[in-house]
């Protein structure tokens, strides 16, 4: 079914996709003329395939559950923010805070993602085929961030248990983020993610793994005089 954002109001389209009847079999939708609108496909909760033809604005596919959403264009701030499950595939570039606070699901970005990609993520997997901007993975708590290109300044600042895999150069590491040994289990997970993102030209072995040094987890009594 084709949904035209030039003819239908955004709220009408989102309500239709959010309120889909479980018994209906036609679960393939195409949204045309998105024209940079915000919150397109926010809050979907069913197994649907939605193809958005064009560039979208902020918070596209936010809070997604189960749905498989493809954007044939660029996305604004906060694509798939707080995603719980499902898959979001951006064929262009993503603006800042892609996948922010996402708990689950897979976000694939074919182009670059700008600053704060995966900020405070809580369990999702994010695969970026290009590069990411500064402060990516900031305070991220769980999940995996895979970057086939380079990472900007302060990568993984104050992160918790997220694994960050970078193929290219890292401009600088944030506080408490260090390079870590790539174990078999990490290679296995990375291989699965590369496969899910349909990436064939990068081998898991060519990535470096970064994670938390865990020095910020507990208060150090030696620092008491600073407070």
């Amino acid at each position, binding site marked *: 079914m084709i949904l035209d954002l030039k003819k239908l109001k955004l709220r009408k389209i989102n309500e239709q996709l959010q309120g889909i009847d479980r018994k209906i079999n036609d679960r393939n939708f195409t949204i045309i003329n998105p024209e*940079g609108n915000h919150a397109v496909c926010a809050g979907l909760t069913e197994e649907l395939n939605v193809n958005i033809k064009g*560039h979208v604005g902020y918070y596209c596919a936010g809070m997604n559950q189960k749905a498989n959403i493809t954007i044939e264009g660029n996305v604004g701030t906060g694509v798939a923010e707080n995603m719980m499950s499902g898959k979001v595939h951006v064929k262009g570039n993503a603006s800042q805070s892609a996948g922010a606070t996402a708990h689950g699901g897979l976000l694939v970005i074919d182009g670059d993602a700008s600053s704060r990609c995966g900020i405070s993520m809580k369990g999702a997997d994010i695969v970026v085929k290009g590069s990411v901007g500064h402060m990516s993975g900031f305070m991220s708590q769980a999940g995996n961030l895979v970057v086939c290109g380079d990472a900007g300044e302060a990568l993984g600042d104050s992160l918790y248990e997220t694994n960050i895999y970078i193929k290219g150069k890292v401009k600088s590491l944030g506080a408490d983020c260090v390079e870590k040994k790539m174990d078999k289990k990490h290679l296995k997970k990375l291989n699965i993610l590369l496969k899910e993102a349909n990436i064939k030209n990068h081998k898991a072995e060519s990535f470096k793994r970064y994670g938390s040094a865990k020095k910020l987890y507990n208060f150090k009594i030696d620092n008491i005089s600073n407070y």
Partner: protein
Amino acid sequence: MCGIVGIYLKTKKFEKNLGKMLSGMLNNMESRGPDSAGFAVYKNSDKKEYKYSLCINNLDFNKFKKDISKKIRNLKLNQYSDHVIVRTPEIPKKFIKFINKELPEVSIVGYGHSIEIFKQVGNPKDVVKKFNLESFSGTHGIGHTRMATESAITTEGSHPYSTGEDECLVHNGSLSNHNNLRRELKKKGNTFTSENDTEVAAGYVSNSLSNNNSLKKTLVSGLKDLDGFYTFIAGTRKGFAVVRDEIACKPAVIAETKNYIAIASEFQAMAHLPDVNDAKIFEPEPGVVYSWGN
């Protein structure tokens, strides 16, 4: 939050449509700034005459015409609602002195050989209509929709700010060291008409340009001297430049085609532009100055 937009034509193809393109961009940025709006349009310049963009406020146009005609020679006037574009060979020093002394209710919005500048409180759609922006042609233009944060909703608090000949600046963000910087710039001879932080940034740019620094070099120094959150578009007779602070909380997106460069806070501002779906679209990187035509 505010909305900023700009369009620079690389070829002559869309010169007649510049106003139409810019007005669509401003209309689409209403959601980011419903309090006031403004724009500057640059047209091919006539070196022999100056153009003064004036806001006559509540003054009757005919009275204004009568008063100004007594003192200023070779006048041509174009009225757009409460704004008037005055064309005259009279040099800025004399003209500004005359206005300030004889017509204190009139405010000077900007001047130069090429720039025409308009701004007013109200919804962007109404402001754009009031000044008939769609009818404008030109080589490049800059616009702003304001959601007022640090100073009141007034004409003086609206953007663009023009603090030098054919110069203007629009801003999304807020500056934290503008009071200090205003004091320093006043010592260097700059004058200010508002308490607005953006006017200080515009003054900073004008001051640097008057010392023969390029626009690019000026904005690179600005990264060090201007403290706060910002995306700026700074316009001159030849073109414009854009810069975001290094934290880059304030958005910007650029679309480039073979005929134009468009810049806006959000893509939706440029969704109506011709060939935009085939444009190269990218975000300006934090702390990097991008300039065209300068």
